[in-house]
C-alpha cells in the first residue's frame, strides 16, 4: 500500500519537494527531543495552503499517517515522524499575509518564525508576546500546535491567549475558519480548543495573532543570592507586594556556570542563584513601581544586584537566561530538558526534592525556571556513552513529573505531552478524562492519521536511543526550552 500511495504523491508536488532518499530524510528523523529518531516514508514540502490541504486529504483517502513539522524544535518529540507515514514540512509557508497596525493583529502562515512576527510589528510599536527560548527558530504553526509559552506568560498568557483566528485543515479533510480580527468571540472558543492540540486535530494554515503595544519602558533587574531559598523568598516578597512583573526567572548555580561558559554572562561573585525580574509599562508607572521593586530586593539579602541601564544591558541579561539550556551542552555530553509546573508557593520544596532525587540517581541537574508561574525546567545531565545513563535520566525525569502532579501542578507548562510524556498523561488525568480526550481526537481525526503515537499512552513505544545533541544544537543555532 505504502509504496503505491507514495507514488501517487508525485501527482501533488513536484519531485524536488518530495523527499524519499534516506540521506534526504535524515534531517527530519528527530526534533528537539533527540533521544527519539524515526525515519518517515517521505517528507513533503508544500509551498501553499492548497497544497497542504491536498496532502491532508490525500492522507485521509489513503489512511496514511502524517506529521506536521515546522522547525523541529519540539522538546517533547511532538514532530517525531511516524515510520509508516509522511512528514509535512511547513517551513515554506512562511509569509506574513497581513499586518494591521490599527487593529493590532498579524495574519501569518504556519512556517513564519516566532521572532519574525515581532520584527515585522516593531516599526508600528507593536510586538507578539509569547517568547519561547527557541523563538529565533521555532515557527508559529508549532507554537499553535503546542500552545508554547515563554518567560512572559504570567502576565500575558501563552500562545492560546494570542490566537484570535485560525484557518485550518482538519484530519477529516474539512477546512475550517474560526474567529477573526476581534479579540472577543461569539460561541464556543474553537481557536482555544485547537491551540495545543499537538498536531492531533489537523494543520493550521493561517493564524491571526494579536499584537500588543511594545511597553514603553522596562526595568530589568538581576539579583544574585547565596542560596536558591533566598531567591525564592524574594519572589514571594515581590508577589505579596502586589506588583505584577512581566517576567520572574530563576537560574541555579549549575545553570549559571553554563551561561558563563557559553555567552560569557557575568553574575555577582559568590552567588548560587540568580533572580531576574522585569517590570514594564508606561514610564510614569515603571518609575514608581521600580522604586518599590528595588526596595524589596534591597531587603532580600542579595549578594549583588544589577539593573539594566539600557536596552543593551537588558538584552545581555536575557541572553544569559535564554541560552542557558543550550549552554548546558558545554557541561555535559547529553541532557534532558524537563518541563513541569508546581504551585508557586511550593517551588522551594520542589527544588529541594529535585536536588535530593538527582543526588540519589547519581546525576547532576541544573535548574532554570519561570518562578512567576511555578514552571520548572530541570536539566538532567548525563553521558549517553555510559550504559544505562539515559535510562536513569529518564527515570529521574519521570519522578520529577510525578512530584509536580502530587503537589497539585502539571506535567507540562509549555512543552506539551508529545512522545516524551505520553505515559504520564494518566498520572494527571483519570480514565474518564483520557477517554474524553480520545473522543475529541476521534471527532477531529476518525482514522487516527494526524500525528499518531503522541499525547496518549501507547501500546508500543519506540525505543529510546542515545543520539547526543541535535546537530543544530551543536552548532549553537537551536536551543532547548
Amino acid at each position, binding site marked *: 500500500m505504502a509504496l503505491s500511495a507514495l507514488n501517487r504523491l508525485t501527482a501533488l508536488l513536484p519531485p524536488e519537494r518530495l523527499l524519499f532518499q534516506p540521506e534526504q530524510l535524515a534531517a527530519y528523523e528527530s526534533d528537539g527531543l533527540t533521544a527519539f529518531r524515526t525515519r518517515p516514508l517521505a517528507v513533503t514540502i508544500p509551498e501553499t495552503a492548497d497544497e497542504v490541504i491536498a496532502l491532508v486529504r490525500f492522507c485521509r483517502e489513503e489512511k496514511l499517517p502524517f506529521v506536521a513539522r515546522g522547525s523541529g524544535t519540539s522538546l517533547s518529540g511532538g514532530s517525531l515522524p511516524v515510520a509508516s507515514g509522511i512528514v509535512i514540512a511547513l517551513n515554506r509557508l512562511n509569509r506574513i499575509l497581513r499586518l494591521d497596525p490599527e487593529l493590532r493583529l498579524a495574519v501569518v502562515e504556519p512556517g513564519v518564525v516566532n521572532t519574525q512576527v515581532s520584527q515585522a510589528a516593531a516599526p508600528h*510599536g507593536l510586538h507578539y508576546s509569547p517568547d519561547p527560548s527557541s523563538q529565533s527558530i521555532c515557527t508559529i504553526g508549532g507554537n499553535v500546535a503546542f500552545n508554547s509559552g515563554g518567560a512572559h*506568560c504570567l*502576565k500575558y498568557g501563552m500562545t492560546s491567549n494570542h490566537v484570535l483566528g485560525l484557518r485550518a485543515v482538519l484530519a477529516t479533510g474539512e477546512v475550517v475558519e474560526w474567529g477573526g480580527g476581534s479579540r472577543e468571540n461569539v460561541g464556543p472558543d474553537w481557536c482555544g480548543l485547537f491551540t495545543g492540540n499537538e498536531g492531533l486535530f489537523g494543520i493550521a494554515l493561517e493564524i491571526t495573532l494579536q499584537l500588543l503595544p511594545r511597553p514603553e519602558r522596562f526595568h530589568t533587574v538581576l539579583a544574585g543570592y547565596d542560596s536558591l531559598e533566598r531567591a525564592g523568598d524574594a519572589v514571594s516578597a515581590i508577589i505579596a507586594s502586589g506588583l505584577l512583573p512581566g517576567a520572574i526567572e530563576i537560574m541555579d548555580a549549575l545553570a549559571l556556570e553554563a551561561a558563563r561558559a557559553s555567552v560569557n554572562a557575568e553574575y555577582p561573585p559568590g552567588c548560587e542563584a540568580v533572580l531576574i525580574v522585569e517590570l514594564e509599562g508606561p514610564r510614569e508607572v515603571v518609575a514608581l513601581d521600580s522604586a518599590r521593586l528595588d526596595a524589596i530586593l534591597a531587603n532580600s539579602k542579595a549578594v549583588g544586584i544589577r539593573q539594566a541601564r539600557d536596552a543593551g544591558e537588558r538584552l545581555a541579561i536575557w541572553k544569559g537566561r535564554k541560552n542557558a539550556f543550550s549552554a548546558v551542552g558545554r557541561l555535559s555530553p547529553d541532557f534532558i530538558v524537563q518541563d513541569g509546573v508546581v504551585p508557586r508557593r511550593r517551588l522551594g520544596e520542589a527544588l529541594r526534592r529535585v536536588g535530593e532525587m538527582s543526588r540519589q540517581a547519581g546525576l547532576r541537574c541544573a535548574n532554570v525556571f519561570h518562578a512567576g508561574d511555578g514552571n520548572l525546567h530541570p536539566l538532567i545531565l548525563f553521558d549517553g556513552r555510559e550504559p544505562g545513563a539515559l535510562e536513569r535520566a529518564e527515570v529521574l525525569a519521570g519522578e520529577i513529573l510525578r512530584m509536580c502532579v502530587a503537589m497539585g501542578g502539571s506535567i*507540562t507548562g509549555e512543552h506539551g*505531552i508529545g512522545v516524551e510524556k505520553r505515559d504520564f498523561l494518566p498520572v494527571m488525568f483519570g480514565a474518564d478524562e483520557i477517554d474524553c480526550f480520545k473522543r475529541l481526537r476521534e471527532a477531529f481525526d476518525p482514522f487516527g492519521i494526524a500525528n499518531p503515537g503522541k499525547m496518549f499512552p501507547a501500546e508500543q513505544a519506540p525505543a529510546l536511543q542515545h543520539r547526543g545533541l541535535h546537530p543544530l544544537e551543536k552548532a549553537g543555532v537551536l536551543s532547548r526550552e
Partner: protein
Amino acid sequence: MSTALAPASVTELVEVVRSYPRLLAFGAGTKARLSAVNATRISVSQLRGIVEYEPSEFTFTALAGTPVRELVRTLAERGQYLPFDPLLTDAGATLGGTIAAGVSGPGRLRFGGLKDFILGVQFVDGLGRALRMGGKVVKNAAGFDVPKFLVGSLGRFGVLTELTFKVFPSPASTLTLKLAAGDIEAATRILVEAANSRWETHALDILPGAYDVCMRLGGPAQALQEIADDVFARWPGEKLGDVDAEKIWSDLREFRWVHADRPLIKIALMPTFIPPLYRAVQRFEGLRIHVSSGGNMAFVSLAAPKQAVELNELLRNLSLSGVTLRGEAPLWCGLQPRAEIAQAVKHALDPENRFPPLHE
C-alpha cells in the same frame, strides 16, 4: 419549560444528567435567552462556594453556582481582582453562567477576557461523567484545552460544576477619563489610537447614547495623573471622580442602560466596523448601543423584538456575529459559521444529545 432540578452535589448532578433525556443548566438567569430552550432545567444554585483561594498563587477554585460578586468581594479583601470586569455581578450572575455565556466586560481590553483567565473546569458531560480538565496552576499545557472551549458554549456540551481561575493583583488605583468626540468617526479614532498607545489603558468604551469615550487607567495614583495630562494633550476631556466613574462602569456592567425586557445582543467587533455599524443602525428606532473593550465588542439593545430580523441581516452583510443574551430574538445573530466538526465535537462530548444543540 418544566420546573428546575437543583442537585445538591456533583454526585446528585451526575444522577440527574443520566436520568433525563434533555437538560440545560442555568445560573441566576441574568442572561435568560441563553437557556430559553425546551429542556429540563438544572439549577446549579446549590453548588456554591469557594473551594480554594490562595492569593500567593493568583488562583481560586469555586463551584459553578457561586455568585461572582462573592468572589469579587473575597478577592478584593486580598487586593486582587478579575481584570475582565465580570458582568451583571450585582444582578447575581453566577460563575458558571458567566463562563457558559462567555461575556466579558470593558476590562477585557487590558489582559484579556474570560477565556484568558480560566485555568480549569470540572463538568459533567453528556455521558454523565464528572470530568476534570485543565489544571489548577497558572501555567499548564497538558491535554486538550477543554476549559477554553467551554467559554461561550452555552451549556450545550455539559454542566459546569467547578471552575479554576487566574487572578491578578488590583492596580494601586484607577482613574477614568471622559473624552468628548464629535462623531462616531472621532470616537473610533480615539479607541484605536489609545489602544495602540503607550498608556496601557484598562478600558476604552463608547458610552451608549453619546459619542463620549470613557478611558480607564490603572496604576499608582501619581503616575495616572501624569498620564492623564498626556492624554488631554491629545484629546480634550475631563477626569471623573471615583464615585462618578464607578457609577459609569457599574451601569455598563449591569446593563442599566438597556430597554427592559427587550432583546440584548452581544456582537464580536473590530474598531474598523464601528462607523459602518453605527451608520447602519440609525434606521432602527430607539436602538441603543454600547461599544466596549476598545471596539472589540458591542452590546445592542433593541427597542422592539422585530428589529432582530433586520439586525440579523445587517450583521450578515458586515460579516459579524452576535448572540442574544436577553429578550425575544433568535439566539444567534449575523454570520453563523457551521462546520461539520462542530457536530462531531458535540457527538464526542454529548453523544445522546442530552443537552440542546448549539444552534437551538
